[in-house]
């Protein structure tokens, strides 16, 4: 896994770097591929029929940047409308969010816009948001144009990429892009929830959580 991460980022093992933890939440309509994106990013796996998520799923993944190691605490939420009311519980205090839509499904893009609005209104003000147009591998069935989504992202200052969990296109890239945008180090001010793993009082990594 380390090998893959270093390929994705620019890891410098042994170099002077800090480990920072960030909470990232994935939002979007049902069956757009949120869980698949996470699974591809975290485990490098892809299942054509990924089990639907109830409530939310929690996963972690670490990426290495030039000067820091970023540990993502990923909350992969359920997409069905009735789980929407639970979403605040998951994006509360999140430093990053990926709003996912399905490029073959216009409705999911509309829904994504709603999520962006909600995050802008209710989430942390300095949250890093990314828009992911997933299922880019079936571009021939596309109903949401790249330009349209890109324009929307630019208007709202979102990171934007079209991704494919199936082919793993842009999957690591979008997480890396977010990692790069996240505030690291004391120069930018210690963000809430960020933990410096190298500090002596936090050496106890928790023997239960290997």
């Amino acid at each position, binding site marked *: 896994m380390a090998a893959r991460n270093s390929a994705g980022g620019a890891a410098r093992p042994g170099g002077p770097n800090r480990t920072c933890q960030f909470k990232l939440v994935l939002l979007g309509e049902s069956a757009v591929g949120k869980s698949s994106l996470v699974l591809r990013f975290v485990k490098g796996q892809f299942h054509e*029929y990924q089990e639907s*998520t*109830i409530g939310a799923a929690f996963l972690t993944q670490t990426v290495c940047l030039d000067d820091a190691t970023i540990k993502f605490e990923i909350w992969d939420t359920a997409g069905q409308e009735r789980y929407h009311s639970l979403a605040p*519980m998951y994006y509360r205090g999140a430093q990053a969010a990926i709003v996912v839509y399905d490029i073959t499904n216009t409705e999911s893009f509309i829904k994504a816009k709603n999520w962006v609005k909600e995050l802008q209104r209710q989430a942390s003000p300095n949250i890093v948001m990314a828009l992911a147009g997933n299922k880019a591998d079936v571009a021939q069935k596309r109903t949401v144009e790249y330009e349209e989504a890109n324009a929307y992202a630019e208007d709202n200052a979102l990171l934007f990429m079209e991704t494919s969990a199936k082919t793993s296109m842009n999957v690591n890239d979008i997480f890396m892009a977010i990692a790069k945008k996240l505030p690291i180090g004391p120069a930018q001010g210690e963000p809430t929830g960020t933990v410096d793993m190298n500090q002596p009082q936090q050496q106890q990594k928790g023997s239960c959580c290997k």
Partner: protein
Amino acid sequence: MSATATISPPARELRTSSICGYLHRIEVRSIGLITRRRYWFALCDSTPYLYWYKDSDDIKCIGRVSLSGAAFTYDPKEKGRFEIHSNSEVIILECSSDKQRNEWMKALQSTRKRSWKTVKSKSDSSLDISSLTGRNSSAVLEEYSSLSPVPPPRSPKPKKRTQFTNEESTESTVESSENDESVAEEVSKIEEVESEEPPTPTTESSATEWYLHPNGQLNERSLQMPKTIESPESVLKRLADQSIEAPFRAIRRNLSNWKGSRQNTVDEPVTSSRKSTALSTYLSPEEKVIELSDKVSSLEEVVDSLRAALLLAQRNNEALKKIEDMGENNEEMREYLLEKERQVTELHISNSINARRARDFEDQNLKLEDTINDLQQSVEAFRESLRTKEELILRMCEEDNRDDLLGSMADRNLNVLADANGLVSDVEVPEGILVDVSSVDCEEATRRVLDEENVRDVGELQDLVEGYRTQNQFLNAEIVELHAIIQSLETREKKLIRQNFDLEACYYQLKSRYLMVLNHFKSPTKPGKIMEPGVLKELLEESARTPRESQQNLTDQLGFYKKDDFSASDDLLDTATFYMKKAGDIVEATKLEQSEEYMKWLQSWDSFLVNNTVSRPIGIMSSPDLKTLIRTGVPPAYRGRVWKSIVTHWVKDKQAELGNGYYQSMTKKASTKKQDGSYDAAIKQIDLDLARTLPTNKLFDEPGSANIEKLRNVLYAFRYHNSHVGYCQGLNRLAAIALLYLDEQDAFWFLVACVEHLQPEGYYTSSLIGAVADQKVLRDLVAEKLPKLAAHLRSLEVDLSLFALCWFLTCFVDVLPHSIYLTIFDAFLYEGNKVLFRFALALLKICEPHVLQCKTIGTVHQCLSKAQDHITDFKSLAQVAFNELNPFPQKTIESKRQQYLTQLKDTGHCM
């Protein structure tokens, strides 16, 4: 006999041999002490056991008896009583009438037959004992093999034949009416024959033959001269011989009785009609009656000894089993088998003879009855004349006296004498007539009484004969059935032996090859011991191949893919460790399944289900005993039945209200709506989720998988059934779990039970308010039961509901392995939502020490997201959930829930 033995009209299910009712069990405790106890007996053909309970509602049985190798018998003289012989145990039962007895016997036989068939088909298909169902069958098999592995009959022995001819000759020669003498004569003759002909040498006849047709007729081949058979010498065999003889001797004695009586009946009517004295004629019917009862008792003896022989045969079977177990040399076993076979043949022949005798006997009886009537008439005639004569004599005496008196007076008056004489003659006639009339009345009354007595006696005897006849038929059928069992046992045994040989050969082959390899490495330099280079490679290849090939079933019985973390590694040691671990697991699992505890658990379930199936075909009732039982988990083999019963228990009122075919009407509605194009969000979501349900299960993992269509129907139907809930992600899990064990319609009702009865209101509705409220209840309960954990979580600002919400919505389907969550479902279905709190707290309690070690929110999150990794088996989890967390009052949960629900409604529901 008290008339308390009642039987409820046999509650018949789809299967015909299910029967239950109160019976008396008669036990002989010690010498002379007999107890009669009334129990509720239940028999259900899903299991080859007869169970009895204290009462019809009971869950725990008092006892059970295996029917799979049992023999049944009864004595027609004892009303309603029958016996079950199994494993050298004799159970005597009594029901209130012979008719009931017949029903029970029929049910018992059919259960035995069915169990045999299933065992046979199972053993035919596979001998896998690692699975639970296999476990059942193997348990049964054990009992079978301990019971009646008696080989089928082959050639009748010459000895037998001589005895029969001997009988025939006696029949024709015995003329004496003194039965005792003839019996003595006969017995001595038989003894002579026996001493003259010691057990004839026997040889194995390869063809397995049946010398009696099921209808009781002799097979043609049974008349052929038997082949010589080798002499069997074991003690057991001799013992068996002796006891087998007993019934034949009794039959012969009976036969001679017969001959005597037949002659009597032919002779006596003739002589009696000619008899000059009434008394002697009168005696003869009485004699007949005595004779008849003698015969009956001798017949009884026959039956008794037959029964004893049956018992003995069974005991022998056990002995045979022992021999089998010891795995001694086959020769001895075969001899023994042969011997058994011979005995069964003998029994058969004797039985058919017996049946013939019984028929003759009946004819005889009819004749006798006629004779008795004739005799009665003659007695009557004689009496009439006798009385008339007596009267006349009396009159004459009186007249004489009067004559004397008159004579003394006559001296004085001769005229008076003449008058008196005329008077006497005048008086005589009317008086005589009068006497006659009165005597006839008297006669008639007496005759009627006598007739009645006779008729009653004869009637009773006839009934008895009829009883014996049916008994005989029953025993014949019994023998035919037992024979079938024996045959299948024999084939199975052969198959097993063959298999065993194959395995052994395989084993030795492997062993020698590996020894060779070991030798090679031990002394690689010594010449002559160096292998050809290909051998080692070949061996390695083989070892890699064999397990792969045997892994044909990549899924377990429920269709879940088996986790096989092992990826082919080049390192031999890794491979070896992997397989060692795997072998260890298999051995462990087998051990567990053979443990006494496990067997007890299975038995208690069997016991409950048998009574529940036959006594209460619909649903179950609530009882603390059942609760305890269900908390131990339902054996997978029974889960479908139990789940269906529990679901029915919850929804039966609703089902009654909505009527039959409700589910079908709902699915129909869904399909018409879909055709109309009214495609709402719920339906769309269902379609999206179908292939995304239980992806680790073969039955659900792809859009074309076996259960996907069913799942669609169930979810569609539920969407139209409960439009308030419609479809909520998570329900697909519940429905899929239900479909693992139930059919479509029952799975639909399962879902209805879960959503509308077991979970509180609002769990799956559009706002999920019920589930959210329960998260708050859980938080309070954690604070109460696990204060340390609660404090730790609070200090790190960890929200437990981030994780626990889906535990409650899907009943742990998403977090625990299926072997555990299915068992949680068992308890959940019976007890409802409270169980989820118990298990959630148990899960938290088990991982509490690990969570307490985590010092940051991130590590706690990680730890909680892997909480399930600390759960190894259901038992330890259940121990915490149901014991360590007590007390656990429903009331607290309920009141807290209400409190939070109101709170959430007021604040507009936001967590």
